[in-house]
């Protein structure tokens, strides 16, 4: 009963968020300068042709009309068609623009559906790496505040967070892939191509996990019930594992929810550097080609993912700590 009400409320709120995001992105793309039709048709196309194409595509209608038409499609599960990408193969260059090929342009939804699993694979693997790095360092730092594990957490955290992800990616490619030939890097031909990007991404995420873990473990270790557990006769190991870590998991979960967008931002840059065929690369190409429907589609899908992940995070947090009442 409680869970049904919770889900209903949060999904409704989530729908509002996704709607706001759609509106924001849709409007922004249309009010800022830069005409996609000019790019599609090529610089040499005559103005009348461009105006005609734009009018055909409905791009000269008032923005609210365009938005309503677009949202109508979204409601039916149709995110529209890419401006520039054909249904198969590489992007259509502006020079070959031909009205007849319009019908063959790729559907935004299928473009996203093809690339999203690649990104999920990368994100999950990097999360696993990040947790493997951060958990021991962060927990030790929290258990011994002011002592060397704490200093180690501080310095390692500061070190990792100061490494620009694109630069680290280049350096690691140069060292591990080009010079030492340990791991494949550019493009994607199998799971091994995910490892290096995931490591770079993990190093970007890890400092935030380390920081949160150090702070929350240290804070919980100062709680009265931890001190009281000693005098109640519980052993140190049990106190740390069953009580301190369990409580410290809640802020960590919340961090994952809030920093989801940071993770995606990292994915984008990393995919670009490693030429990894995921959602991030798709986004950058969409932006560079001014492919409005694709940018909108990606924004909607990511904000929906954000909403869903945050609901899952809150549910998990409530399961751990029943006091949290979302």
């Amino acid at each position, binding site marked *: 009963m409680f869970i049904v*009400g919770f889900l209903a409320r949060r999904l409704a709120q989530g729908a509002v968020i996704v709607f706001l995001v759609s509106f924001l992105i849709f409007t922004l793309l249309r009010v800022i300068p830069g005409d996609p039709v000019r790019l599609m048709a090529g610089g040499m196309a005559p103005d009348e042709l461009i105006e005609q194409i734009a009018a055909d595509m409905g791009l000269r209608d008032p923005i609210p009309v365009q938005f309503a038409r677009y949202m109508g499609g979204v409601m039916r599960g149709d995110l529209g068609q890419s401006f520039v990408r054909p249904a198969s193969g590489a992007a259509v260059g502006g020079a070959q623009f031909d009205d007849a090929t319009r019908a063959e342009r790729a559907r935004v939804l299928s473009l996203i559906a093809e690339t999203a699993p690649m990104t999920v694979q990368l994100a999950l693997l990097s999360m696993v790496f990040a947790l493997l790095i951060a958990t021991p360092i962060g927990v030790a730092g929290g258990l011994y505040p002011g002592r060397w594990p704490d200093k180690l957490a501080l310095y390692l955290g500061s070190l990792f967070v100061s490494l620009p992800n694109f630069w680290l990616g280049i350096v690691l490619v140069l060292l591990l892939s080009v010079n030492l030939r340990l791991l494949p890097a550019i493009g994607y031909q199998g799971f091994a191509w995910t490892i290096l990007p995931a490591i770079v991404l993990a190093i970007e995420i890890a400092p935030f996990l380390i920081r949160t873990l150090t702070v929350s473990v240290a804070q919980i270790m100062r709680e009265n019930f931890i001190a009281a557990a000693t005098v109640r006769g519980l052993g140190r190991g049990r106190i740390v594992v*069953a009580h301190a870590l369990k409580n410290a998991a809640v802020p960590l979960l919340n961090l994952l929810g809030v920093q989801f967008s940071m993770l995606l931002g990292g994915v984008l840059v990393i995919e670009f550097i490693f030429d990894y065929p995921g959602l991030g690369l798709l986004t950058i190409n969409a932006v560079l080609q001014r492919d409005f429907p694709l940018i909108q589609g990606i924004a909607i899908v990511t904000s929906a993912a954000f909403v869903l992940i945050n609901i899952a995070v809150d549910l998990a947090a409530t399961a751990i700590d029943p006091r949290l009442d979302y």
Partner: protein
Amino acid sequence: MTETLLDVRGLSVAARTAEGLRPILTDVSLDLAPRRILGVIGGGGSGKTTLARALVNWLPPALKPTAGEILYRGRDVLKMRPAEARRLRGREIAYVGGDPAGAMDPTMTVGAQLVEKLRAVEPGVSRAEARARAIALLGAVRIPAPELRFHEYPFQYSGGMMQRAMIVDALISNPAFLVADNITQPLDVTVGAQILKLMREVTERFDTAILFVSSSLPTVADVADEVVVLDKGAIVERQPPAALVAAPRHAYTRRLIEELPTLWTPGGGRAAKLHAPGVAPILSVRDVSKTYVAGARSGLGPKRLVQAVRNADFDVYEGENFGVVGESGCGKSSLMRLLTALERPDKGSILFEGKNVFSGKTGDLRALRRRMQLVLQDPYSSLPPQTSIGDIIAEPLVIHGLGNRAQRRVRALEMMGEVGLPKSLYDDLPNGLSAGQRQRVNVARAMILEPRLLLMDETLSALDQTEQSKLLDLFERLQAQHNFTYLFISHDIAMVRRVCARVAVMYLGEVVELANNDRLFFDPGHPYSRALLSAAPTLEERRYRSEDCLLEGEPPSPIDLPPGCAFATRCPSAHDRCRAENPRAYARGHGDRAACFLLEATAASTPARETHDA
């Protein structure tokens, strides 16, 4: 004493500081026989908590024992190997602290933690057996519906219930010795009285000796077989409680006893200023109710309503000291928010100097705020930490646009002089002030607009007895000078006895009794007033014993109040009618009234309202 369970000999403990070792306890010796309760009394900084923690070998890292031994059944606790100490701790020697709310992991059920603890100290016990023992004990400490409570989380327990659960946690391994460190301090007096009753039973039923540490002499005297007095880290005397109270030997003990407020000494309400006859009420509260919506769990489903104030109705007359007394959750804070016009009542009206406070015009409200001022409860969070003391005091003048900079400074300095603050503090930040000084700043700030009515919201609760007396003297002097009217809101019945001429007693949102000072203390009309008096910390011979005045049980939740009288669940005189129908207030003459059916027979048939004119 034939057998000694615990024998402390010449124990000294010191704190490691930058300047070297600073003694906390010096040469403490005491012993405890099985099934006895030894009380330890001492003020803040006396070292009593350190003593309690040393006995369970649980000193914080900054403290270390420097001399002496703690022999438990002949073995020195301090010299045990860590593993041995751990086996003893929690199993044979148990500890209950003064923070029941924070004593258990909030993310696990109470039952799971009781089982966890028992299996940690007695690994052989099966899960099912541990569970059975926990439930049996929860029942034994009179937690209702223990099978259900077993599966609840700590935050679902009230403070008193949680303290009972912690006692179960201590007793579950059948310890021979229990250290109870300030266990009643955070609890309401009537709930604390119930816990004390439980302590006395524990020694009998569980064969346990108790070291009972407290800062309240009446509490210790109530429960202990013998009392040791701890002052500045040393034991100054040891006597049975009756002898200690009758013939204290040490100066510190004598001062402790003298400082205790008295409830039933004739003329105890020396500062209780009654209004002059025939004056008009300055503040009239007419049938006021306020209901809050408690955070509904999902935004769907039924809303949960907290009836914070229910039909409050009383008058405060010009120049008098009026008291509102009640325990936590009685609605006195909500009432205060209504009186200060921070919130609107759902029903009823509040008249100040004959005018409705909520007339609707903001200008009126501003004018009212010049004439009615609030002195806040918590001396620490009530002052903006980044503002200088002078600016804090002068702020009301700025807000109301009175005077220029220089005039405001003069007025603020004048006020500082009146409340006894050194003028040199004018430019200081409040961070370094003592609690008493902070309350003086609060008083000065409230007075600077020359109000008629001062609302004192638990103003003295955070202060020690000596500071309280000083501030009360100050209030008296200011009242004589400026003819203030005071409305005190407090949980401290002894303070009310000293200061308030007329008192409203609140329980779960209702004013259950309204009485003159002497009448309330010598002839209370409501059973809850009697229960409150019976639980009050005093060394005097009690007129009311909590055994007679208070049943086991918790106050009902304000969210789903029972239909009848709210006190019926804990009232020894409750009968069927009390559980079905909420009694109205019955007049008892001289403006006194109380809401209890027992008064129906004796009360005149006049409705309570008419007694406003009495």
